[in-house]
């Protein structure tokens, strides 16, 4: 059973004060997220990521379409007991301490009183806020608030967690900790759906990603599928500082760094290059397929979308 099935959800807002005109924030979206995967929802700012998350959380109402979460209608209130949500740049009741806030959210999520105390303590430990649990949130830094946000999202031990830009506002250490936490959640069998515009985070974490731009889905797939086989090239590395003439003749793109040479060649030229290295008695170090980075794929998708939009206009 998929964790999330988005069945044509779309959202059009009315904008303007006097003469209302429609503004489409999300085109009909079809998307499936499998159980137990870390799914990245990528797009530039204003692409429709947050709108999608708000629709799934029931914070805004769709103009059309529906969704199923954990096998049930997404509007079913019982679904919400099993999902956690971290909004973008979260803001909490700043008159509460971290402990009080988690206690309150535990009450609202229906965590039984006996388990609640223990659960709050565990989560405070997990997000590294144990030492400041008695401090009012108004004295917290942005990074600390982000940790509180993550804590409240996982407090009730949900099966599915939605994070909207979870690394936003975090320093490198904090980002690393959030990555570790997401991997830990996956290890515990939970599904993580997170939106981001930081592609390196997605590349490091996600099983699959979807790319959205101007409210339209531009691509979905596993990172490996999206980033490999686009160019059909391999990188050959050997020891030395010279490039044999026969390799140069293949039109290889070569770079010498220290005592190593890196050459980018077509996959079908691989055997010829190995033969040339043998003949010249040069030591082969590695042959690896060249992968397009997620960033390159992302930029390409957006560029293509812009070109199509330009032609249509």
């Amino acid at each position, binding site marked *: 059973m998929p964790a999330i099935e988005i069945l044509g959800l779309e959202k059009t*807002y009315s904008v303007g004060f006097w003469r209302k005109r429609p503004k489409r924030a999300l085109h009909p979206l079809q998307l499936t997220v499998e159980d137990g995967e870390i799914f990245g929802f990528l797009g530039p700012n204003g692409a429709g990521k947050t709108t999608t998350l*708000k629709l799934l*959380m*029931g*914070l*805004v*109402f769709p103009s059309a379409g529906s969704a199923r979460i954990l096998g049930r209608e997404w509007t079913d*209130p*019982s679904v*919400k*007991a099993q*999902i956690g*949500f971290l*909004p973008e*740049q*979260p*803001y*909490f*009741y700043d*008159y*509460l301490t971290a402990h009080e806030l988690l206690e*309150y*959210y535990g*009450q*609202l*999520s*229906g965590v039984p009183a006996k388990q609640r105390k223990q659960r709050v303590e565990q989560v405070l430990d997990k997000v590294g806020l144990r030492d400041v649990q008695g401090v009012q949130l108004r004295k917290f830094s942005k990074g600390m608030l982000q940790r509180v*946000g993550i804590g*409240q999202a996982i407090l*009730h031990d949900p099966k599915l967690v939605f994070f909207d830009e979870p690394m936003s506002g975090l320093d490198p250490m904090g980002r690393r900790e959030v990555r570790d936490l997401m991997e830990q959640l996956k290890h515990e069998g939970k599904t993580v759906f997170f939106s981001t515009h930081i592609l390196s985070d997605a590349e490091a974490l996600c099983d699959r990603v979807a790319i959205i731009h101007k409210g339209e889905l531009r691509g979905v797939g596993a990172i490996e599928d999206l980033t490999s086989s686009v160019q059909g090239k391999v990188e050959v590395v050997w020891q030395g500082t010279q490039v044999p003439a026969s390799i140069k003749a293949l039109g290889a793109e070569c770079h010498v760094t220290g005592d190593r040479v890196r050459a980018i060649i077509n996959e079908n030229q691989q055997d010829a290059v190995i033969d040339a290295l043998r003949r010249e008695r040069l030591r082969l170090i590695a042959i690896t397929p060249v992968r397009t980075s997620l960033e390159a794929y992302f930029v390409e998708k957006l560029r293509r979308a812009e070109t199509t939009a330009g032609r249509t206009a």
Partner: protein
Amino acid sequence: MRIAHIASNTFREAVRDRVLYNLIAFALLLSGAAILVGQISIEIEKLVVINLGLTAVSLFGVVIAIFIGIGLVSKEIEKRTLYTVLSRPVRRWEFIVGKFFGLAGTLVVNTFFMAVGVFAALFYVSHKFVRADALILVALYFIVLQFLIVCALALLFSSFSSPLLSAVFAFSLFVIGSFAEDLRNFAALAHGVSRWLATGAAYLVPNFSAFNVITSIAHEQPVAGQLILQNTVYAVFYATMALSGAVLIFEYRDLK
């Protein structure tokens, strides 16, 4: 149960945001007045303390009800604290009703402390309590009923407009409602379209004038049991209607 948790958090917010500090201003006002009138005349001092005390209880409470009530929903939307609440198994109507009871609870506690202040001032000027002083409790009860209506109205406006507009609407309704009896009398005298309009407005605005028994109580005139019942039913009905309106609007509102 979730309503109780939301209400209790709303109460805690008011306490931590130092809303109950108004009690200090109230205490200063009342003790100043008690000392001052004690020097004017023995005959009217009790009258002044009851009138001033209860009017202050009413005004302080209405100001708190409006200024907290107008931000109860809009502030949560603006600061996005609502997102982490409504993404839990909390229904939108539970949120509104919880907020209402939280604010109403704050006002009841506030009124309780003010009432203690009024009785203390009364004891200071008359050195004893008489049976008729118990009527002050009826006036206080009516004041609390007024607060329920004002809270519900502030929440209603807060569910669809900005805090500033909500404050203007709620305060205007409070002022018009305080003269509802005059509006009804005017409607009875008017003719044609203006009669219809005035009658409609008179019955639509909350009739706060029926809740104002301060002057008669200061003169130790008893309050009819029927009026107590009538005001109770009216306040519960009006607050429920306003609250239902707030729920209806909020149920379908996009939280952008």
